[in-house]
Structures are given as structure tokens and as C-alpha cells.
């Protein structure tokens, strides 16, 4: 198996006009999520590496953010007033690169370099090599503090730009997140949104078996956040919630997106084995069939 440009052929979808209806937006996000999944599956299968379980858990969130929420386009990728999206769970870099390609930030054919020697598309994202990446993440518990710092800069600038950060649920076991949440609350960063990819699985077991995060909504609320729970695979719900922040003036928002690792592939979904397993030829064909 070798990843080549023949495997990097996804359509570039771009954004809909701003006056598009909600139904049009939701349909657009759904199509983007489908194309991103197909392309990401090809990347992981042909490159022989990646974190497909976490990728598929997060793709609906990424497609919603880039497809209809974030005020950022390939033309404004360096604009100081752009919204910021920080992927804290940096191991789903494949999903991020594919999303960036779907919306025109990254040439689709560049996806064929994924994980190859000297590629810009490292196993964890590098802001100095990939336009649209805001922070070099990978070690867990780093994105949320960086997001708090950016949200603080926006507040100092009296700017309306927003900051979104996607964290894994297992990642919340890192104490640095809770340090950052206290600071976000103290500084009343209500244009900061933390999205938790709540798939309830970590590397080798459930979060419950490992270091249970529940009651997560109550914990986040106790740390001063406005807490909202959504179905993390429902594009309509994601769009409504992520575009509506802040929910409470003066409070940062904590969106718990309930997801399944490997969604929606029948044999991957909610299966801990698919943290970084690579689909073989038969599994690949089966997954492609299910996505089509």
C-alpha cells in the first residue's frame, strides 16, 4: 500500500454564500463530512497509519466549524481578525488536513504526502508548515491554554473574533486544561468555546474504566462555563450551538459533543480497537461502501 495522488481526489467544497438557508448549510456540512470521511479513510488505508477512530469521531465537528461557523477562509488565513480554531487533540491531524483541503486551505493533491518523509503533513499538525493550523499540538492538554491566551488577546484588542478549541475527552485528564478553564472563567472569556469530543474512549479503554470524567457537565459548570450538550454527529445541532455562542454573557462556553469513535462505520463505531488501527483491504472496501 502506498499513498499516491490517485488517492487524493476529494472535491473542494468551499463555503456557501452567507445568506444561505439553514437547511442548505446543514446539507452542505453533511456533504463535506461525507467527502472528508471518504478522503480520510483513503489516507489512513494507503498511508498505513493514522488515528481513524478519533478522526471519524471529530469530522462532523470540524466540517461544521470550517463549513459554516468559523470566520476564516483561505484568503483570510493570516488576517489578524480571523476566528481561531485550535485542534488540541493533535493526533487527529489527518482529519484536520482533509478538512482544510475540503475548504480550500490546502491543495488536495498535497494530502498524498501525508506522513511521508519531509511532508508538511506530519502526524501532528505544525502551524509553521500548514496554513490554517494555529498551534503545534500533539502532547495532550496544550490546546486549551493556548486558546485561552488567544481569547485574552481578542479581549485586550476589544475584538469580536472568536476562539474555538477541540479537545478529546480522555485529554481532559490532563490538569493543564483545568488550570486554563479557571483562567477563562476568571477573565470572563465569553468568546471562547471549548468543544469536547466526548466519545468516551481513550487509547485502550473507556474513560469510565480509566479515570472517569463524569459528571463532566457539572464539573465544567463548576469551573464557570456555560455548558451545552449536543449530538456531535448531528450537523444541525452542531451548527445551531456553535454559531450561537456565547450562551451566557461573561461566561465561556463548554460544548460537550457526544460522539462515537469510528462513526458511522459499523465495525469501527464505538470500538476501542480503532484508536489507531489501519483498515485492511476488505475493511477499507466495506467502509467505503458504508460511506457511499
Amino acid at each position, binding site marked *: 500500500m502506498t499513498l499516491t495522488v490517485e488517492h487524493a481526489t476529494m472535491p473542494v467544497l468551499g463555503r456557501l454564500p452567507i445568506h444561505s438557508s439553514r437547511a442548505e448549510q446543514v446539507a452542505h456540512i453533511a456533504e463535506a463530512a461525507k467527502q472528508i470521511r471518504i478522503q480520510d479513510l483513503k489516507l489512513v488505508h494507503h498511508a498505513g497509519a493514522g488515528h481513524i477512530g478519533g478522526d471519524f469521531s471529530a469530522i462532523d465537528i470540524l466540517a461544521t466549524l470550517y463549513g459554516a461557523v468559523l470566520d476564516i477562509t483561505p484568503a483570510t488565513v493570516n488576517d489578524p481578525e480571523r476566528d481561531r480554531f485550535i485542534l488540541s487533540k493533535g493526533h487527529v491531524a489527518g482529519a484536520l488536513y482533509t478538512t482544510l483541503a475540503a475548504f480550500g486551505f490546502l491543495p488536495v493533491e498535497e494530502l498524498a504526502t501525508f506522513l511521508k518523509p519531509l511532508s508538511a503533513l506530519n502526524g501532528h499538525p505544525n502551524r509553521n508548515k500548514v496554513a490554517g493550523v494555529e498551534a*503545534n499540538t500533539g502532547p495532550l492538554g496544550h490546546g486549551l491554554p493556548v486558546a485561552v491566551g488567544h481569547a*485574552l*488577546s481578542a479581549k*485586550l484588542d476589544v475584538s469580536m473574533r472568536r476562539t474555538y478549541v477541540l479537545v478529546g475527552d480522555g485529554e481532559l485528564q490532563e490538569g493543564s486544561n483545568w488550570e486554563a478553564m479557571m483562567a477563562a472563567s476568571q477573565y470572563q472569556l465569553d468568546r471562547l468555546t471549548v468543544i469536547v469530543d466526548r466519545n468516551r474512549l481513550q487509547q485502550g479503554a473507556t474513560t469510565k474504566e480509566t479515570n472517569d470524567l463524569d459528571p463532566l457537565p457539572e464539573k465544567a459548570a463548576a469551573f464557570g462555563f456555560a455548558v451545552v450538550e449536543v449530538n456531535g454527529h448531528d450537523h444541525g445541532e452542531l451548527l445551531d450551538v456553535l454559531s450561537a455562542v456565547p450562551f451566557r454573557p461573561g461566561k465561556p462556553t463548554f460544548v460537550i459533543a457526544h460522539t462515537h469513535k469510528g462513526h458511522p462505520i459499523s465495525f469501527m463505531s464505538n470500538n476501542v480497537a480503532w484508536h489507531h488501527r489501519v483498515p485492511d483491504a476488505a475493511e477499507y472496501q466495506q467502509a467505503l461502501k458504508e460511506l457511499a
Partner: protein
Amino acid sequence: MTVLETRSIADQPRYDCRDAYVETLAELAEADHRIVGVVNDSVGSSKLNSFRKAFPDRLINVGIAEQDMVGVASGLANGGRIPFVSAASCFLTGRALEQIKADVAYSNTNVKLCGMSPGVAYGELGPTHHSIEDIAWLRAIANMTVIVPADPIETAAALRWAAASEGPVFIRVSRMSVPKVYADDYSFELGKAITVREGNDVTVISNGTVLWRALAAAERLAEDGISARVLSMPTVKPLDTEAVVAAARETAGIVTAEEAVSGGGLGGAVAETVVQHHPARVKILGFPEFAPTGSAGYLLDRYGLSAEGIADAARKLITTGK
């Protein structure tokens, strides 16, 4: 630039570099709205009360949370600010080392890390509060510049340089009082050694709070008829390899003296250079172990970082080669 001519540097008035730090930071912040301070509750220990009064919104205090502090600084830089993180060096570099590596150095963000009260400045508080490892740790990280100023003048000059340059910088700011080594017209040049005393028999390379002791050591050596060259090496990374190689070539050996572990810091950098370019006798003075209880001054003396200790090491290097 002129180096102050004095009878003995040891008799000169002493200064706390944190005063120069806060004065310069305020001056820089006044001139550039992008500059902000970031602290871990370390307002008092960084002497930043006057800064907070002058720029209340621009002193971000995240509380006692160093990992968050460094991550927040990286995010502030992403938003166009120039954060000066100001925290006890032991906690800043030890607790937040991975944030320094990933969020600052690897992300290559414009963050200035100011390690307050480094080395053994906290004396009797012991090894948990000593920061003798910071230079070795940060020197190992790509993209990181490491600066160890010797006096208030160099502290101010290095800060001005850091504010004007793009990218990650670590600067040590000492609380241990030191005499002025430089004249007021000193301007900091990255990666350049300064010959603060000419000499051809032996070389002492030093920085930070130990530099003036190295000069005092040279005074003593002169009394014995030994002409010691004293190189000030404020930039540990990138190192002035040319000056080190010249010292290796032109004098009988090199003594390094620093308020840090005796491996991996300035001494380590000098030794690596000498071994690869011009093998020579090198003696590294520093702390080879966790220090016992004692004041900062006592500990420096105990580990041979006094004028007499450095002079002894130089004499021994010349006579025995070790």
C-alpha cells in the same frame, strides 16, 4: 563600548537586576501596546507591582498555574501580542517545560520567557526552589535563544533586544545583587562574547551573577603575574564559537564559571565547542549536585564560584592541566 574601570569590582555598589527588569519592561510597554506581562501570581516576586499599576489590563495573572501560563502566552502571541512571561525560573522552566517546547519553541511563537531568581538565588529555600537546570534544559530545545545577563545594564539591554526580535527567548533575571560590569552605553548583541578583560595566559568564560566574580578572580590572578582573559558570554545559545575557539587557541586553558549545573549549561556549550574545534584544557565550575542548605552567597562560595575559587581553578588548570 567601555567596560567600567574600577579598583576592584567587588567594592562597587550592588544592584538587584529585577529593578532594571521592571523599569525596562514598563518603558517597552509604554512604547509598544503589544507588550503584555504574564505571571503565575508572581507579581511581587517579579517586582511587577508598578507595572500592574501602570498597565492594569496588560498584566495577565493566571494564578499559580505554570503550564497554563506558558500556553496562554503562546495564545497571546498568536493574537499579535508580545508576552513577557515573568515567573520564578524553577517553576517556569521545570513545571512548564513541555509547554516551552511545544507551544513556544516548536510552534515558534513570539514569547519571551523571563526566568526570575534563577540559579541558587533562593538559597535556604533549597533545591526545589533552585533553578540550576534551566539553562541546560532550554539550551536543548531547538528555536530557543538563551540569555544570561550579568548586571542591570545587560538585563535592560537584553530585554530591549528581545522585544525587538521575533521568536522565542529565555532570559534569566537575577534577584541576587551584583555590581555593574558594563558602562551605560552597552548594547546587547546576540551570540557575541564580550572581552571584559584582556589576557593571554588563561581564559575565564562566565555570565550572570558570576561574571563579576570572574573579574575579581582575574584581579587576584594579576597579583600573581597571571594574565587572565575574561569573556562575558551572555548568550549561551547561540554560542559565540569563534571567541571560544580563539580562547582555546591563544591561552593555556578555559575555566567556565556559572550559577548553574556543571554540565549542559555554559560550561557544557564551551566544552562541546572546544572538543569539536580546538581541543584544550577546560574546567567547568558550577553545581554538580543538589545544594545543601545555605544562603546564595554561601553556596556560590562553597562550589568554587567565588573570586578565590575561580582564581584557584585557573591556577590549577595552568599548572596541572585539570
